[in-house]
């Protein structure tokens, strides 16, 4: 099958495109079992719809406090952006470029999928290095920043070897390349659940036929996130902005008897930003032009860079969010303004018979308890590192 590159990028050659299609297919393998969710859009899913959320990891704030979460999420340690790798879990990751203490010059965001970058690294090493250099604001970068000791352009090096070397340098928990740890740049997402596979799995399990009877009216209804997520442990995390929303929306689409597919190209996109919440010290609203959208064709952007143009004589940290009255001190405050979307294609309501379905009793549904164990653990590590 042919699958477009995220954001309708055109960086892959024939072999790369085939590998990308294969990679996507492997992520979507589980979807074939669903009566409602299909692996790719077809004539049966003619309508576009989006699920959108904002990029601030609300679960982390709910477990700690907003202020503490902001600090933790921006945590940069010896290995780079620790807060990002551990807890930037809303399919949006960022790095903060600081100048003087407390000064923020720039915040860079990405929703780029690690699966795509693996394929890019495996099949288009020159393009990959050019892209990294561009994202880092350099004329060129050495191959070792992305491939370690491997020479990716050597004749006998295989795509699998390139991918493995790239993953070791740029993606895996011990990866130390500053071009994806945040020291020099960020290229693609690294938090362990910010993957196409995780998203596809969530859509697959959420898009099942489940219903529960409304105790007050006696009518059938679809499940809330609090009820649904305990039914597919490991596929979604309660109290995030993204997962519960995807779980409910997809569950509801199935409840309405619609066929559901992730859009082609599959990806997570940055759709907009609440720029008017930010004001200069003079009280002027920040124009949208100070946000630079990239790595995709409008409206499928995967990268956002926020900085004040040089002529303005201001830093990002001079700006105030009027919805909180606080000056910008953390990247997380800007992440709160970024609108992230998952684009779906769906069919008409009633196209798929709802019966047979899983009819749940209210008692069988989940309580939606918050799990903060991991957040507290990371917060303790952060406190210990300071």
């Amino acid at each position, binding site marked *: 099958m042919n699958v477009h590159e995220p954001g309708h990028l055109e960086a892959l050659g024939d072999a790369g495109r085939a590998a990308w299609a294969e990679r996507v297919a492997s992520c979507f393998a589980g979807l074939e079992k669903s009566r409602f969710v299909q692996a790719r859009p077809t004539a049966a899913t003619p*309508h*576009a*719809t*989006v*699920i*959108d*959320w*904002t990029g601030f990891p*609300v*679960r982390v*704030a*709910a477990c700690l*406090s*907003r*202020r503490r979460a902001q600090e933790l999420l921006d945590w940069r340690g010896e290995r780079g952006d620790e807060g990002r790798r551990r807890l930037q879990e809303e399919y949006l990751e960022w790095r903060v470029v600081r100048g003087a203490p407390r000064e923020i010059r720039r915040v860079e965001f990405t929703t780029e999928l690690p699966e795509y970058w693996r394929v890019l690294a495996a099949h288009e090493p020159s393009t990959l290095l050019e892209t990294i250099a561009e994202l880092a604001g350099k004329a060129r970068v050495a191959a070792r920043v992305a491939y370690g000791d491997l020479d990716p352009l050597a004749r006998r090096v295989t795509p699998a070897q390139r991918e493995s070397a790239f993953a070791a340098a740029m993606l895996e928990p011990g990866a130390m390349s500053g071009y994806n740890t945040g020291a020099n740049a960020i290229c693609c997402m690294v938090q362990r659940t910010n993957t196409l596979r995780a998203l596809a799995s969530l859509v697959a399990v959420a898009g099942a036929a489940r219903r529960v009877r*409304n*105790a*007050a009216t006696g009518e059938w209804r679809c499940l*809330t*996130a*609090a*009820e649904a997520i305990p039914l597919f442990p490991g596929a979604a995390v309660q*109290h*995030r*902005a*993204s997962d*519960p*929303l995807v*779980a*409910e*929306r997809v569950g*509801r*689409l199935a409840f*309405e008897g619609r066929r559901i597919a992730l859009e082609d190209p599959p990806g997570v996109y940055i*759709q*907009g930003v*609440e720029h*008017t*919440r930010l*004001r200069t010290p003079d009280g002027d*609203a920040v124009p949208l032009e100070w946000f630079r959208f990239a790595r995709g064709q409008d409206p499928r952007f995967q990268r956002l860079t926020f900085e004040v143009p040089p002529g303005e004589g201001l830093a990002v940290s001079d700006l105030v969010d*009027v*919805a*909180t*009255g*606080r000056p910008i001190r953390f990247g997380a405050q800007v992440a*709160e*303004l970024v*609108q992230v979307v998952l684009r779906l294609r*769906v069919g*008409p*309501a009633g196209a798929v018979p709802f019966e047979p379905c899983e009819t749940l009793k209210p008692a069988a549904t989940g309580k*939606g308890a918050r799990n903060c164990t991991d957040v507290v653990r990371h917060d303790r590590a952060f406190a210990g590192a300071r």
Partner: protein
Amino acid sequence: MRGDLIQRGVWFRSGEQAPPAFRLVLLNAQAGVDGREVGDALGAVLDMLAGLPEGVLPDLPGMRGREAQRSRRQFAKLTTLLGLGARAFDASAHYPPLVAAERPDHLVPLRGFPALPWEAMTSNLAEADVALQLTAERAAAVDIAAAEVAQLLAERGLPLRVVATFGGFGRVDRRGWLGFHDGVSNMQAADRLAALAAPADPPWMAGGTYMAFLRLRVDLAAWRSLPRGEQELLVGREKLSGSALTAVDRSGGVPRPVAGGDFVDPPQSTDPLVEASHVHRANQSRASPHAPGALRIFRQGYEFLEDIGPNGPRLGLNFVSFQRDLGTLQHLLHLPGWLGDANFGGDPGPSFITLLAGGLYAVPPRAEPFAGASLLGSP
């Protein structure tokens, strides 16, 4: 819904319906007073207000029998909800601030919203130290109660003054000035507490909620000039029945709304025109408040009529919402695709609503002697 700490006056519990009379009374502390003095004054005000539905009127002590019974009827369901504004936490308004505790992150003076322009605002009268939301069965009850508050403050020389009040009414037919049903797609009762109950950030707000008040002027003449079909596409409902739109018929050249969706819980739409309607913009995700990203709020609005002058009636909506986090409302009114890029509905649609006044308030959890009393201690 037992065990919740939300103050009375948020009519969210199963079987409850907001009474039709509304008046918001806004109070500022006099210069130089501290939190404890304000707390004592508020205690006196709230005691007086609590007495009204019991037939205890300040100017009529000792009323008994049939007369007291009539007073109790007059003030039936009179309920007071107390909120604290950003001003109470602001050291530039009071030094030291009336409330020394940490200010909630989104409790700020209202700066407005990108698609909801201020109407010639010079000073925003809805920003105050304290807001008292009065609701009751009869308009006279909330109006008399508001006047009694002002009288009590003056007669006892208490260090608070009424800076503004805003009145409103609910309609039995559940329609608003636009002629459409309004506020009918609020959440199921069982889900409401998840949208309302504030987290413990700051700790003193645990179990409380937040109130947003927006005094919105509606240009009724502009609205009425729109054809009914266009109105229905902008609202997302069929005008007479309130049935949600499910599709748009484009066969005749002019888009015609197709209704048939659930009245309370409109179905997800895939038509761009329906998705741009107010019903969908205000609740794009169509998910429950158990999904924090769903941006659900609990609405409890009241219409108002200020005057009828040579230019026609000056009227609108007291938009009142309660939510677990004021950030939710900020997102809703700033995000593109929601209400950040449309005044009401459409893409971007007509602009006929302006902001006359507005304020955001923390509504502390129920406590004795009154909600928030412990915050108004000595600095």
